[in-house]
């Protein structure tokens, strides 16, 4: 299935190296520490360096244009840029080099910012000489560089979406609308996730179940969408364009489940499903924080409820007096940041030993929406709101303004001194003791009939999926994107994308936007017949391979290395071979090969030798 393109490059490695070295000041990020001019002076003296320039922003258009122009006018055939992390700009400069007419892999990126100027702020001389050594190593490596071609592989132009909440449904609806077939896998027996359970959603007061139903309708009848409920991903292998997936099903609880109106019937007949997909979207959502027993009285005092339960019940109550569990309620409290914005040493740690130090984003608005609804429906109920900061950002501020006007009483506590909930006296169910910083930090006692805990969001527990897809997880237990601005919905695994609250707390609108962004990133690679992969994979020199199979034992990636029987001089011999699509280029095989028969393209042993020589031999720059 691999289809290697022949090099079509006019400027080849056979010519004597003419290397251009470009040093970036990064607007001072680098040049405030590294003496870039002195550095350039030294670099010019290195062997085969034909041009060396310093620019304020190498990545800017004028900076890029300089490289292109030099390649063409000065016949450069290899390029080094010494700037920021390759993570940010290696690809940028490979493209520039290609625009200049060179093979994009005759390029080396040197990180003199994160690895040098930022690390050695207080040692400019040392940093300058380190930069020189690093550049010298790159120049040495380039001496042994060969033009490489990206690996082209077939592409299964369909997507797997994991999770049938609004994020998953939205990605499926958009992709199918754009003509991309989608397989949607939901672990529970119904679609719609949490939103389907919400009575009212902010900011437009739409009914959650109505929103969910509309999205469900868009996908259930779509010919390009296939939905499997009570299903889970059992196996995944492969890489972008070529993920092979096995879907398995939970045993059916009882026969009536198939009559579930929300599409469970789709999985009624399947035992296992196999599919090949090009991209995978993880939309597994988040869960409301579940307070520990006794946390603010939860689970011990019946008058302490979580926000999720409160809003479900409030919607069903008749107007008139506010009756909760058979009792007339006059004083209601809302407590913000339950399970969020926790402080080390104040809040007990979670099961994994860590606290939830993040803000859950949706809850301030959700709380004030409920407080306001309560005030509007039951004007004589007194509402007390215990908060740290009211985070009704953007237009949600309206809920804050209106709640204040409606007479909600706000009390501000500090994270270090969370309110204390105790059994009430004189007929009220509870009393909350809190130091209120809006009234000069005095401790006040507020008698309540009902306390609503404004619970945050926590990452949904998906250890198997994290393991199967090798998903990166952040310190907050949410799934981690590559870079919040450069690649906000992509994971470190090429072709695996994040949508919605699996990544971070978000409200409905934000979740839908994130889902759209994930859908587009899933659609882009599927708009072509083939996917292109980086060429940095292992390659076996069959002549040197003695068939010892040590590499096969060492390789951690199924299918990346395999053995093959070939005829050598009329006799059959076993040789190792690489499947470039499955090889991760980790180099484990290279290390164990006794005959130096395996090399990583772009990172050969000769190149490593040259880099080490380059690092040790450079002369330090003075001053």
């Amino acid at each position, binding site marked *: 299935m691999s289809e290697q393109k022949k090099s079509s490059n006019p400027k080849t490695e056979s010519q004597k190296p003419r290397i251009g070295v470009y040093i970036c000041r990064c607007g001072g990020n680098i040049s405030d520490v590294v003496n870039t001019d002195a550095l350039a002076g030294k670099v010019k003296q290195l062997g085969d360096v034909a041009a060396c320039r310093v620019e304020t922003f190498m990545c800017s258009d004028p900076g890029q*244009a300089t490289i292109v122009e030099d390649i063409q006018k000065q016949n450069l055939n290899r390029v080094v840029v010494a700037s920021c992390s390759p993570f940010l700009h290696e690809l940028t400069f490979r493209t520039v080099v290609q625009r200049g007419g060179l093979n994009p892999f005759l390029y080396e990126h040197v990180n003199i910012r994160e690895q040098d100027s930022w690390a050695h702020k207080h040692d400019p001389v040392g940093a300058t000489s380190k930069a020189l050594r690093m550049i010298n190593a790159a120049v040495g490596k380039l001496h042994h560089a060969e033009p490489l071609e990206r690996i082209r592989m077939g592409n299964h132009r369909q997507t797997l979406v994991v999770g049938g909440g609004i994020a998953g449904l939205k990605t499926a609806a958009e992709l199918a609308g754009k003509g991309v077939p989608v397989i949607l896998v939901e672990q529970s027996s119904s679609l719609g996730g949490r939103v389907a359970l919400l009575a009212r959603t902010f900011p437009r007061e739409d009914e959650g179940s109505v929103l969910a139903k509309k999205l469900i309708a868009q996908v259930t009848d779509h010919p390009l*969408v296939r939905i499997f409920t009570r299903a889970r991903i059992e196996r995944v292998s492969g890489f972008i364009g070529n993920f092979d997936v096995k879907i398995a099903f939970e045993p059916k609880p009882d026969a009536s489940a198939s009559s579930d109106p929300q599409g469970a019937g789709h999985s009624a007949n399947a035992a296992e499903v196999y599919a090949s997909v090009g991209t995978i979207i993880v939309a597994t959502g988040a869960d409301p924080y579940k307070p520990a027993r006794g946390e603010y009285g939860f689970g011990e005092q019946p008058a302490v409820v979580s926000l999720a339960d409160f809003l479900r019940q409030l919607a069903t109550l008749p107007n008139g007096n506010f009756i909760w569990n058979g009792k007339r309620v006059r004083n209601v409290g809302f407590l913000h940041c339950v399970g969020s914005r926790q402080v080390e040493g104040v809040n007990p740690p979670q099961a994994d030993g860590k606290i939830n130090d993040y803000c859950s984003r949706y809850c301030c608005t959700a709380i004030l929406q409920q407080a306001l609804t309560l005030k509007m429906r039951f004007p004589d109920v007194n509402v007390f709101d215990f908060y740290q900061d009211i985070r009704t950002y953007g237009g949600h501020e309206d809920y804050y303004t209106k709640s204040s006007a409606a007479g909600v009483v706000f009390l501000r506590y500090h994270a270090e001194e969370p309110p204390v909930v105790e059994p009430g006296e004189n007929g009220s169910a509870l009393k909350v003791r809190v130091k209120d*910083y*809006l009234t000069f930090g005095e401790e006040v006692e507020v008698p309540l009939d009902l306390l609503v805990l404004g619970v945050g969001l926590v990452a949904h527990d998906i250890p198997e999926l994290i393991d199967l897809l090798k998903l990166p997880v952040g310190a907050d237990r949410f799934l981690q994107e590559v870079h919040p*601005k450069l690649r906000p919905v992509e994971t470190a695994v090429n072709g695996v994308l994040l949508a919605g609250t699996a990544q971070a707390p978000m409200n409905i609108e934000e979740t839908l936007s994130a889902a*759209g962004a994930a859908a587009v990133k899933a659609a882009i690679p599927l708009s072509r017949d083939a996917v292109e992969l980086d060429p940095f994979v292992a390659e076996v020199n069959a002549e040197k391979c003695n068939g010892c199979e040590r590499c096969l034992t060492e390789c951690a990636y199924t299918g990346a290395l395999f053995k093959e029987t070939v005829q050598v001089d009329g006799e059959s011999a076993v040789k190792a071979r690489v499947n470039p699509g499955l090889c991760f280029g980790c180099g484990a095989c290279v290390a164990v090969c006794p005959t130096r028969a395996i090399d990583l393209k772009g990172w050969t042993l000769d190149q490593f030798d040259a880099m080490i020589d380059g690092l040790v031999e450079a002369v330090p720059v003075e001053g």
Partner: protein
Amino acid sequence: MSSGNGAAMRETENHFDVVVVGGGIAGLQSALDLADQDYRVLVVEKQPSIGGRMISLSKVFPTLDCASCITTPKMSAAAHHSNITLMTYTTVDAIEPAGDNHRLTLTQMARYVDTSACIGCRQCEYVCPVEYPDPFEQGMGALRAISVPFANAIPQYAVLNPEYCIGCGACVRACASDAIRLDQQPKTLTVEAGAVVLATGFHLNSTSLKPQYNASRSKDIVSPLQVERLLAPHGPYGRVLRPSDGKIPDSVAFVLCAGSRDQSIGVPYCSRVCCMYSIKQAMLLSGALPTADITIYYMDIRAFGKGFEQFYQNAKAMGISFVKGKVARITPQPNGDLMARVEAIEEDGRVMENRHDLVVLAQGIVPELVSPERLGAAKEEDGFIRRPDPLRPAWTGREGIFVAGTAAGPKDIVDSIMEAGSAAMEASHYLTQKRATADANAPSLELEVIGAASE
């Protein structure tokens, strides 16, 4: 140096799959996400360079990446993309339906420079004798009457500002490419598009909206965009100085919600990013001015995004002081000091008079586009572009017209980029549906279902 000025618009080319209005971070991201799916995209930008607000920022919260380092590659990727055409210094004045397409009326302003000849060598700039306050540097540096707008601008063409040009002709003589056209006139063009993405962005409301802050009476009562430039490594002074007298400030105050959350100034909403950019600026200032006292006066700290709360806690740990209080008045003193009268809510409601030598007003975010109706959309009460369908947050409610970024309401860069992707997805979905015909190559789902479960 002329590479990177984008695919030049061929005179005959007047139909695009999508036109993106606005070349800020949201517009560029939408354009890239569409062009990568092989749609032909035109980006129309009012300013002489693409990049929007983000290209003028210093570092960005919550990761403190340098803003240029994130923006320039996107600008450059758009400029070099074979499916993207850029038109800068051009406004979209009207969008009307044309069959099942849209007809856009554009005005290309006069640059007084022939972009097919200009190579961005800046010889004109070096000889021009007139300087005026540099808009990119928020008026703090100086720009020649003819110049390339800023160092990493895209495209790198010179622009002449007729307000300041004295007509001496020095630039005309210096230009080796014979590119300067003092008689150039604005041009009106029309293009057609299958779909439109509005990404027209925001601006900040005025520092003088609140007379009690006396911004007009002191140069040291500054806008946060000025602070971004002061903090930028390649900014106007190369370091942080106060604008009035060049003194290194030793006490800096930030007044949050200075142009938001106030019905009386017509901005009842919260501007969403000012808490965070103020915290960011405070952190960067404390790095640049290690001995300075930095105070943030706030009502609520709205650190709600991914990593924001942790960022806020780091700022507190760095020693930045957060004072919950209303700033009633700022009074410039004859010696240049600024006295802030503050009701400190958490300190018994005591009224304090605090001395600072630089005060930053966190202004509100208001829409750049005043009449979305003319561009085929409608506006909400708050002035931002309306999105009537809760399930399609990138859709304006008008056939084929989408919206991304701050044009739809205040938001940070990450959220703008997310929406931009979402708008690109909606637009490509829309275009696919529009073209859908009985296609023999129509995609179909491929999978293998094995066995029958308990039925």
